[in-house]
């Protein structure tokens, strides 16, 4: 890592620019490929014009993909930070995410019970949503640090697979602990996100005249909230890691734990803080996920966790910027696969295969470029 004096303003602007670049870049590339495919196989369908359908759907698919990408990126940061510091895949990260989601949803349900949540758009709705996100972050961060202390720290010197298996155990344990708690308290194991604040309202961006019809392209308020929250968190984390004293300590531990210890860094504290930050980001993503998909259930963390891990590997695990890029690319790819796969294959393969997409990408990336899109050389420490 270069030695440079951080310029606070630059540390905010730079990641913003990178994010914008990633969104634009991956959107253009993926849309281009999709349109190309549409043009190439245009002749296979007689009942509709493939190209036209593709173009009509495109803006909506892009928006969905970007929203998904922000959530994956936020979760992926948790994986990437822990991996950077400990070289360890925190398999239970998806469950920290799930706990955060439940914490936020429970808080909002309680507030709704108190009659505090406004039904229409208002400032208070945003305040309460923000509060739910913060509570989700606190709960996830706490769980994350506790898990590190109990299940990971005692195993730090053990062979690589030992902490990984422990993490799998924690993941399973946490899923059923939440299920047990929810079943005992509510009788059902999932919770619905309360409807409030008029977040489901759609804002019309523009209309496309096409064949005499007007196609409206709209964005849900939910999506805007998620995008803004995602940007704030990604930029904030980047600032924390690159421009503060704590960030310097985290980077030094990531580079060489023993040497940082000798230089006076409290390694255990830094590792715990890394888990706290990663877990908190996961928790925030969890609340946003529940907000977007209006539901929290004990098993919700598994697939997003796995995909966010894929995103982290895709971007180059251990790299924060890489996680943002990976998340964005994966979110877009998944959104495209979900919408176009069925159209392009005449219904033979539907959106069910979108999960396979993520795994296929993971396998391909690991085979051909294990260091990820942005990664430098691979470091394979034993």
């Amino acid at each position, binding site marked *: 890592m270069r030695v440079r004096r951080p310029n606070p303003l630059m540390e905010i602007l730079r990641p913003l620019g990178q994010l914008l670049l990633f969104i634009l870049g991956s959107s253009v590339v993926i849309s281009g490929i999709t349109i190309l495919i549409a043009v190439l196989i245009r002749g296979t369908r007689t009942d509709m014009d493939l190209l036209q359908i593709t173009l009509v759907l495109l803006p909506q698919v892009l928006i969905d993909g970007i929203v998904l990408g922000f959530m994956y990126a936020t979760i992926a940061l948790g994986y990437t930070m822990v991996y950077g510091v400990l070289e360890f895949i925190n398999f239970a990260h998806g469950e920290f995410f799930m706990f955060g989601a439940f914490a936020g949803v429970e808080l909002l349900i309680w507030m709704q019970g108190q009659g505090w949540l406004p039904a229409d758009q208002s400032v208070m709705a945003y305040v309460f949503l923000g509060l739910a996100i913060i509570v989700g972050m606190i709960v996830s961060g706490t769980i994350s640090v506790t898990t590190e202390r109990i299940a990971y720290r005692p195993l730090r010197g053990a062979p*690589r*697979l030992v902490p990984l298996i*422990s993490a799998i155990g924690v993941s399973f*344990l946490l899923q059923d602990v939440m*299920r047990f708690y929810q079943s005992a308290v509510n*009788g059902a194991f999932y919770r619905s996100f309360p409807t409030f604040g008029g977040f489901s309202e759609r804002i019309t961006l523009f209309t496309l005249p096409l064949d005499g019809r007007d196609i409206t392209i709209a964005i849900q308020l939910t999506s805007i909230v998620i995008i803004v929250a995602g940007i704030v968190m990604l930029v904030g984390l980047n600032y924390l890691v690159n421009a503060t004293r704590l960030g310097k300590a985290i980077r030094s531990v990531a580079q060489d734990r023993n040497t940082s210890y000798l230089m006076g860094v409290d390694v255990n504290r830094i590792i715990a803080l890394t888990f706290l930050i990663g877990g908190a980001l996961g928790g925030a993503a969890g609340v946003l996920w529940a907000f977007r998909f209006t539901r929290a259930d004990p098993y919700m963390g598994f697939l997003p966790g796995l995909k966010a891990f894929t995103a982290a590997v895709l971007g180059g695990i251990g790299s924060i910027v890489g996680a943002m890029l990976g998340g964005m690319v994966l979110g877009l790819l998944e959104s495209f696969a979900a919408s176009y796969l069925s159209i392009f294959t005449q219904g033979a393969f539907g959106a069910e295969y979108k999960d396979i997409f993520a795994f296929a990408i993971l396998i391909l990336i690991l085979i051909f470029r294990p260091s990820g899109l942005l990664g430098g050389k691979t470091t394979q420490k034993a």
Partner: protein
Amino acid sequence: MSAQSSAQLSPIQRMLKGPLGLILVFAISVGASYLFVLSPRSLIVRLLLLGSLLLIYYMPQKGWIKLLFGGVMLLIVLPYLGLFNPFLMELGFQIAAFATLALGLNIVVGFAGLLDLGYVAFFAVGAYLWAFFGSQQIWHMDEPPGTFTIYPTFPFPAWWFWPFLIVGIIAAAITGIMLGFPVLRLRGDYLAIVTLGFGEVIRVLANNLDKPINLTNGPQGITPIQRPPLPAYFTSQEFLNQLSDIAGRPISLNDIYGFFFYFVAIVVLIIAIFLARRLDNSKLGRSWTAIREDDVAAVAMGVPLRRTKLTAFAIGASFSGAMGVIYAANRTFVSPETFSLTASISILVMVILGGLGSIPGVVLGAAIVTLLNIDFLQTLSLQLSSLRQGSGFIPLTSIPWSSLPTQLDPARYQRLFFGLLLVVMMIFRPEGIIPSQRQRLELHEEPVDEPEGAVIEGEIEPDHKLEN
């Protein structure tokens, strides 16, 4: 197992020493069997019965005596007792089936040190293979699920089960190689995630390959699947009547198949144990150990890394493929649900609980986890649901049992127990209940009660931990 010096016997083993110990074990086995005849439905008696098998394993006697004891128990006493409660045979079948799976996974994880989290995928390959060819699915390939009728005949006669057992082994091994070929150069933890992904891919495929061609019949699963034919004598009414007289309850054809699959699974398990032991001591087994411990050094010593890892994958997968075929025939029904991540992890729990790389440990782990899974938790759930129907109250509270949500069924919380087991084992006893010698040396800090001058085959002493 070589004769152990008396200095390192555990307290239990010391109690079972000599002819007196032999008589004690014999008495316990007979006692447990007798109790079983008296109350064939009791969980405790079942546990006692299986515990006596463990005692037979533990008693410090000559190898052939233990084999004789164990053989008589497994092949004569247990099937006889199975006449009184068919569930015993089901339990035996499941334990043997999962023990075989766990032995296969043990080759990959325990011997070669490659963490495979999608192991159940190979099981699925075997199961779906026989499900496809052993049912009428071939005739329904162009019909969507739920729209077709069941015919009285099948495209393949039932005896094809036996050839397909071999085909299943080969198909699973090929799948193992196909998965292994691209991913085996990945490091341990990446490999774990990729295999997990692969397991999920197989499950998603099984769920969705009902279109465009109906290969798997989607989430509904394939049924009916044929069971292999039995000799006419065993299915004759006369034979059934004889058995019914002994058992004091009507014995049906399904019960006969219960016995049949129990024997098949036991035989396959014995073959698997034999193979695993031979492999562990072979040149290949030592290569696995070498790449597990230090792959750079192993390559430097001339071990072909790729090929050695691939063989581990292929052989591990083939165990699973064989069991898949048997499982499909036993259930006569296959659906994607069986092949979830939970199933993969439960097999991993068996291996880790018993002891990575330790063959007796893995079998014990399989027995414990299977008991927990299909017997203990189910019994608990039944107890709970009968309490729920009563009018009692939860002890120390004023909450009636009946207000307890059905969501709290213990049988639904397998993951809780698996997770807890994994974490606790990793922290307190990563080498498992019956550790393999090597793992014990590596993972336990304190100096081990190593017999003096013991030579562990083909091993270079770990450079640390032994010196203190």
